[in-house]
Every structure is written in structure tokens, then in C-alpha cells.
């Protein structure tokens, strides 16, 4: 059945809630083990890239649900990641001073990170609930632009342009002989991403997800059915901010630093690129999109390096070519291939035809939910 079916289905969803959750947990566990296994096949630099992908995935997974399920286009997810990164870094430094290190330091700092980004997301979400389409995009856009200003004005805390550096977190004693530090960082990134994304999937498959789709498709109808649209939007924004913050925390853990220059508008737009080319509303698509935005610039730089170009031509191509490719992908996918990569993957079950109300940009989202 399809998304916009009447909300009477909502009652049935609640009834079927727990069982898909078990199934989901098994899937999540299997995928996590596969991913961790994959790190053994990768050299340190590839593991570092893998960690970046996992961190990006935390943010894109939240963003794809926010855009795909509630139709709220946030251009400010880089700022939310930065909030997580700063939360992590400041907490980690405070804990280091208090003499706490290792796993407790990581867990507590991560909690601080998601608290910071969740709080910012909650505030934004409260504003967002009153706003529509472009007005929300406007607020989030200006938020990203204002990020360097915040870090400069409060440079006593955020250390301005240079950002905050944190102590190095090595491989735990027990694993030291077994794996290199990059592999350990990839493991941490994978595990954080796994928890974040499983949580998102559970929300999407449950009542909350259904309510989000209902509000997206017809807010008035949803309200008539007793769905509190404002609350649903705020919840969606906060949830996606929390996972973005977790992504920022992982990036900070991997690179031992956080600075405003890393969370630019360009990066924010790249996150949108990832979820669009992956397929809006699709978690697997968000993962594939994250791979693309992390790997493509590297692939293109490697490729242009292999060509025998003059220094000037190579210089102009290296940074610009990936942007060109992303731009073209964004246009082509949105215009001609709205399901993204995810929609193009082979599927075992025939997918339901898109219903008229669902826009091309918000393709129907297959879920495990009994509907």
C-alpha cells in the first residue's frame, strides 16, 4: 500500500510495531558486522575514507528522512554537524582535564555532541514548524553562513578560525596488536552510524514516520485526523539534527579537530547532493550518496593527476571538476531519475507506482511497515 492512504492505517501500524523492529535490529547487526569485516580488507587510507563515509552517512540519513518524509529542505545541516563537532571537542577537552579518557570519554563526549546538536535542532525545528519551504531554507542557509561569525565572536570558547583541537584517541589496549588506528576509527564511525541509522529506520517504520508522511502529503488532512503537524515537524527536525551531530562528533573523533572552515555552505549543499542522488527518503540511498560525495572528488583528482595536463589546467580542473560533476548529477537525477541511485537498484518486489500527490522529488518510500 501507499503512503497517502488514510490514517486509519496508522492504527494498524501501531499494532505491528514491535515485530519489524526485531527484524530491523537483525538487519542492522548483520550490516554492521559486514562493514566491520570490510575494514580488514582496506588499507589505512581507505579505512579513513570509510570512516568519513560513515560519519557523513549519519548526517545524510537524518537529512534524507527530513526532506523525504516531511518535505523540509534544510540547507544548514553542516552547521548542525558543526554543533555536534564542537560539543564533542569541548566535552572531550573538559573530560581530559578531569582525567577521564578512553571509552568513557568518547561516550560522554558523544552524548554532549548529540545534546548540542539536538538542542540547536530543536530550536530550529520550533521555528521551522511555522515556516514553509523556502522560508525554512532561508533560515538554515543563513545559519551556515553565520557559523564562522559565531566561532569568531565567541573565540574564547570556539577558538575562531583555527577551531578546537582534541587529544588523540588511540586504539584500545586489547586491540592494539590487531588493528591500526585508522581501522579502529572506522570501527567507531561504523558503530555510531549503525546506532544512529537503526534508530532512524525504526522511527521511519513506526507511527512517527507515518505521521511525517501524512503531514508532508496533506497537512490539513493530517490535522483533521488528529495529527499534531507542528509537533511532527519539530520531532523530525530534532531527530535529524541529532544524527547530524553524531556525524560531526565522529568527524571530530577521527580528525581530532573541528573548525568552521570545514562546515561551509558548500559542504551543506554537498549533503543535499548526497541525499538527492541517493534517492530522497531512502536510507540506503543516503549511504550510497555519502560514498559518492566522499569518493568522487578523490577519484577525479586521481584521474586528472594521471592525465598529462599543464600545471595551470590541472590546477583549474582539480577543484572545479568534482563540483561540475555534482552539479550535473543533481540536475539530471532530479529531472530525469527522481528515485536516485536507490531507485535504480534491482528490486525483488515490484514497487508501488508513485501516487499522484507524491512529488517526483519525494518518491514513495518503501518501508517494512505493515500498511
Amino acid at each position: 500500500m501507499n503512503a497517502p492512504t488514510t490514517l486509519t492505517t496508522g492504527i494498524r501500524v501501531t499494532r505491528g510495531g514491535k515485530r519489524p523492529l526485531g527484524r530491523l535490529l537483525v538487519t542492522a547487526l548483520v550490516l554492521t558486522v559486514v562493514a566491520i569485516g570490510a575494514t580488514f580488507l582496506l588499507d589505512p587510507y581507505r579505512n579513513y575514507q570509510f570512516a568519513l563515509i560513515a560519519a557523513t552517512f549519519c548526517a545524510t540519513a537524518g537529512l534524507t528522512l527530513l526532506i523525504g518524509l516531511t518535505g523540509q529542505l534544510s540547507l544548514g545541516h553542516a552547521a548542525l554537524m558543526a554543533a555536534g563537532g564542537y560539543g564533542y571537542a569541548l566535552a572531550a577537552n573538559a573530560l581530559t582535564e578531569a582525567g577521564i579518557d578512553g571509552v568513557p570519554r568518547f561516550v560522554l563526549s558523544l552524548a554532549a555532541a548529540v545534546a548540542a546538536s539536538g538542542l540547536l535542532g530543536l530550536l530550529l525545528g520550533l521555528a521551522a514548524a511555522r515556516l514553509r519551504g523556502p522560508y525554512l531554507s532561508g533560515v538554515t542557509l543563513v545559519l551556515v553562513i553565520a557559523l564562522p561569525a559565531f566561532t569568531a565572536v565567541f573565540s574564547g570558547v570556539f577558538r575562531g578560525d583555527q577551531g578546537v583541537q582534541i587529544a588523540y584517541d588511540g586504539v584500545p589496549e586489547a586491540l592494539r596488536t590487531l588493528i591500526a588506528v585508522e581501522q579502529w576509527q572506522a570501527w567507531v564511525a561504523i558503530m555510531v552510524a549503525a546506532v544512529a541509522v537503526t534508530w532512524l529506520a525504526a522511527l521511519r517504520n513506526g507511527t512517527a514516520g507515518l505521521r511525517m508522511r501524512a503531514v508532508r502529503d496533506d497537512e490539513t488532512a493530517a490535522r483533521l485526523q488528529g495529527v499534531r503537524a507542528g509537533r511532527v515537524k519539530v520531532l523530525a527536525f530534532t531527530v535529524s539534527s541529532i544524527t547530524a551531530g553524531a556525524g560531526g562528533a565522529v568527524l571530530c573523533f577521527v580528525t581530532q579537530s573541528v573548525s568552521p572552515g570545514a562546515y561551509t555552505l558548500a559542504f551543506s549543499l554537498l549533503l543535499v547532493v548526497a541525499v538527492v542522488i541517493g534517492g530522497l527518503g531512502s536510507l540506503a540511498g543516503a549511504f550510497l550518496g555519502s560514498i559518492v560525495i566522499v569518493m568522487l572528488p578523490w577519484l577525479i583528482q586521481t584521474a586528472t593527476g594521471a592525465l598529462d595536463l599543464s600545471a595551470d589546467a590541472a590546477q583549474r580542473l582539480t577543484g572545479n571538476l568534482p563540483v561540475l560533476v555534482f552539479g550535473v548529477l543533481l540536475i539530471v537525477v532530479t529531472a530525469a531519475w527522481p528515485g536516485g541511485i536507490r531507485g535504480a537498484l534491482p528490486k525483488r518486489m515490484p514497487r508501488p507506482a508513485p501516487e499522484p500527490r507524491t512529488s517526483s522529488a519525494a518518491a514513495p518510500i518503501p518501508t517494512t511497515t505493515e500498511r
Partner: protein
Amino acid sequence: MDRLLFLLATGLARGAVFALFALALVLIWRAARVVNFAQGAMAVVATYVAFAVTGLTGSYWIGLASALVAGGLMGLIVERGVMRFAGHASPLSGVIIAIGVVMVLQSLLGIAFGPNARPMEAPFPETPIVIGGVPVLSPYDLFVLIVAVGVMALLAVLFTRTPLGLQLRASAFAPEVSRLLGVRVARMVTAGWVLASAVGALAALLLVPTELGLNPHSADMLFVSAFTVAVVGGLDSPPGALVGGLGVGVLISLVTGYLGATVAPIAVLVLLVAVLLVRPGGLFSATEARTA
């Protein structure tokens, strides 16, 4: 007091450019219900054309004319070439495609011209006229103000007093009915894009001589400021763009002057959030909750 006057005057001159650019965003929003994120990049392309033409002919005015033509052409190409494919059911797809256009245009400009800024000369002196011991506005600032206000007045006349304006407004607000009445709605949407892009190009051309120089990112901050202006004023409202533009221009100037340049982006964010919390559709929104 002198300082206040000086900052107000500077802010007004800059605000006029914001207003003009915001007006371009409003025009496209009214015509096609899309926020044209590519407006800045399109305007920079047109400014490069003006730069080249001025370089070849030695005339600022031929350059200005070519920027308007190039801007209009960019509007035509982008609307017919890519925007047509945006699903009309969702307001998101138009925005996302526009973001794609920004990336394509900026990277192409970067590949073609490199990152270096090229200085552009203003057609009038930029030394301010001193009134009562206070440097107020330069002849160039006056030119910018006059052009901005003039263009807005012309557009107001176009929309309210001409058949074309009526058709443009009709197809924006009631496309189905307009079609039934024989208005060629698709053509009107294109006309809106052409008009808006030419206005956007003009705004960028007016701004660049006051900045570091022309480079692929010249209009990035102009877009952000003007988008804020359009949102503050209400995306549907040309008067909102004017008032919002001057207001944001003065705000940035005063904050920079009294509190420091670093605080300015935060002040803009605070203004935006404050306005939207009170009026979610912007200051001059016609209806409280107009669905996009």
C-alpha cells in the same frame, strides 16, 4: 552623529543593490514558485560578459547593455533548458535543480577563468560628496540608487499598467484559469525568468565595482543577503524586497560600524529569525500561510 549619517548613507547604497537582486528573486518566485538559488551564479556569468565587452569596446554602457542581454539569455536557457524538467508537484525539485545549476556555472567559470579576481572600474567617481563635513554618497552610489529605484518603478508600471504585466500576474497566481482564458502560461513563466535574470545581472554588475573584483564567487554573498531580504520582505512582495533591501543594507552597515564586521552575519540571522517568528510569510506577506 556624523558617523551615524555616514553609515546610514553607506548602508542605503549597498541596500539598494540587495533590494534589486531580491526583486529578481521575487519575480521568479511569483512567476514560477521557485526560489532561484542559481540567480547569483547566473548574474556572475552575465557580469563576465559585461567585463569582456567593456574590455573590447572600452565602453561601460555597452558592457551594461550586454550584461542585461546576457542575463536575460541565461534566464531563458536555464528555464527552458533545465527548470522545465523540475516536477511541478514539489517545490523542492526546483530548488535542488537550481542548486545544481549554481555548481555547474561556478565550476565552469572557475575552469574557464581561474580563481583570480579581475578589477572592474565604476563608470562614475567613487569619492563621496561631502555635505556639512560628512562624506555622504559618492556619485557612483547615487547612480546605483537611482538605477535601482528606477528599475523598480519601471517594473511596477510594467506589472500594474500593461497587458503583459497583467498576463504575467495572472499566470503566476492562477495558471489554470489563465490558460482557459487564453494566456500562454508557459511563455509567461519564461518571460518572468528572462526579466528576473536581467534584473539580477544588473544588480551584480552594480555591486562588483565596489568589491574586490570579478571572480566566480563574486555574487555568493549578494545572493545570501538578497535571499534574506526577500524572505524578510515576503517572497511575494516587490515592495517587501525594496524595504527589506534597504533595511538589511543599513543593518549590516550599522552593525559593522558600531559592533564590528564579525558580528554582521549574526545580526542578519537574528533579524531573519525575529521577523519570521512574528510573520512566517515575511513582513509584506499577503496571506499568513500561503502554501508554496
